[in-house]
């Protein structure tokens, strides 16, 4: 339960940072006359962040190890998507001194990398636990 809680809360925090960061904490450029690329990146990251947070809540709620492995895989893929959005799929403004390039882009890269690494580690450790549990059950069944 302790591990479930820690990992769940960790992903909820990361989800909040990814979702709300580009709007509040490390904001993208302000919208003046034209809407720039970074605005759409922030919108997409809001969705990705919410999804990461929801997966974090699911990690706390569901006790099944296999389900949590599945959630961890989803989190890895979600993190990859979160990384691709500001870097390749949508991008940020071209100007090297623009707020979105100076602050939002590196922050999103770090946060999404953290999601990928943490989810991968969580998934692998759950896989090991699941394997151990199965072996133990097997031993118990065998006379």
């Amino acid at each position, binding site marked *: 339960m302790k591990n479930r809680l820690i990992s769940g809360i960790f992903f909820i925090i990361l989800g909040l940072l990814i979702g709300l960061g580009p709007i509040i904490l490390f904001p993208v450029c302000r919208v003046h006359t034209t809407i720039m690329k970074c605005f759409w990146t922030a919108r997409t990251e809001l969705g990705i962040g919410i999804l990461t947070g929801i997966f974090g809540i699911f990690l706390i709620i569901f006790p099944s190890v296999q389900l949590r492995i599945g959630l961890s895989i989803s989190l890895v893929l979600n993190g990859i998507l979160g990384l691709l959005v500001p870097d390749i799929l949508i991008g940020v403004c071209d*100007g*090297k*001194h*623009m707020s979105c390039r*100076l*602050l939002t882009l590196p922050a999103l890269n*770090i946060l999404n990398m953290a999601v990928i690494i943490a989810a991968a580690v969580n998934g692998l450790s759950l896989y090991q636990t699941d394997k151990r549990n199965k072996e133990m059950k097997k031993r118990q069944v065998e006379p």
Partner: protein
Amino acid sequence: MKQPSFFLMRMSVCNLKRKIFRTVCLIFLVAVLGFTLFGGFILTSSLKNGMASMKNRLGADLMVVPKGYEKKTEGILLKGDPNYFYFNQSLVPKIAQAEGVLQVTGQFFLTSLSEDCCTVAVQLIGFNPDTDFVIQPWISKTYSGFVEDGQLIIGSDITPEKDNTLILFGKSYPVAAQLEKTATGLDYAVFMNMNTMQRLFFDAKKAGINFLAEQDPQKSVSTVLVKIDKNYDPKVVAQNIYSFVSDIEVIIPKIMLNSISNNLESLVVYIRILAFLLWFLSIVILTILFSVTIHERKKEFALLRVLGATRKKLIRIILTESLYVSLLGGIFGIILASMIVFPFSAYIGDRLQLPYLQPQLDVITDYLILSLFFTFITGPLSSVAFALKISRAETYITMRKGE
């Protein structure tokens, strides 16, 4: 019989795992140290690197600008704030006549429109390839060819269009080369020869831009860069120029940079003192923590002695534990520092408003090794005295203590 060393390692790991909270606290403490050391090294090195680059790049010994434009020129050079100001080109030969002046070259400044190429306005600088001694040596580092009419050379912070062009005053110009980063305002400037500048100037006029007043690149210049004879003092030559020409301001870049350099030096010293103090503090705190934990584990060590562990082995167990703590903490702290100083380097430079240029990979590697060394030795240094003390304790007395 000699025990294999992995047994000691395994034992140390088990000991650390057994008191996980204490171990995490110790690792965190060393991580803070690693973070400060490596982060501090990179920060100070980047500031020094930026300053050195700026000194190299400002090329000329003196800069002559119209009277009252000293601050604006500093803004262009140091912060990249685009600006324009002019005086009559007829003053250039007069400046060249001053005693101690070796070479002069004029530059013409213009600013782009914010909606043109780069979202914000950039500094456009026209130079004369025949007389220039500042821009061309710099350009030659990245571009070996001659800057043709209509071609642009852009600073490192300007992003060209996908087809390697730049749109200025509604027209597209090919980019011949991009200059290497200098940590000066010139990173956000576009360079061209005077013919291209002339073309741009008329394009701007055609577009109805009236900020250019009645100036013309053929009749006016924004600044005259002066190279002086090595035997002359820049201040004396500046006085000589003042006696020849009126309504001008002579800037001595070295003096302008000295004030920034002094501020920067003190900042570097503060950061290094802070890092050293933190290192010292970490050793003190770790020493206290190790003394408490080793004191707590006296009976455990006495039991190990009873089971046949030699004094040397006890010392090795304690030192291995502390080394693991330092190792993990150091690596964790350095990774954390790297996650901030490298991806956010542009942001840090922007916020500091100081020349900030990340050092080369070999310098970074040197600092990495140095930081790892300092963090790795912290743990063993803090625990070695207590390890020696506990190994010398009389086993029987230690076991019976408290009975």
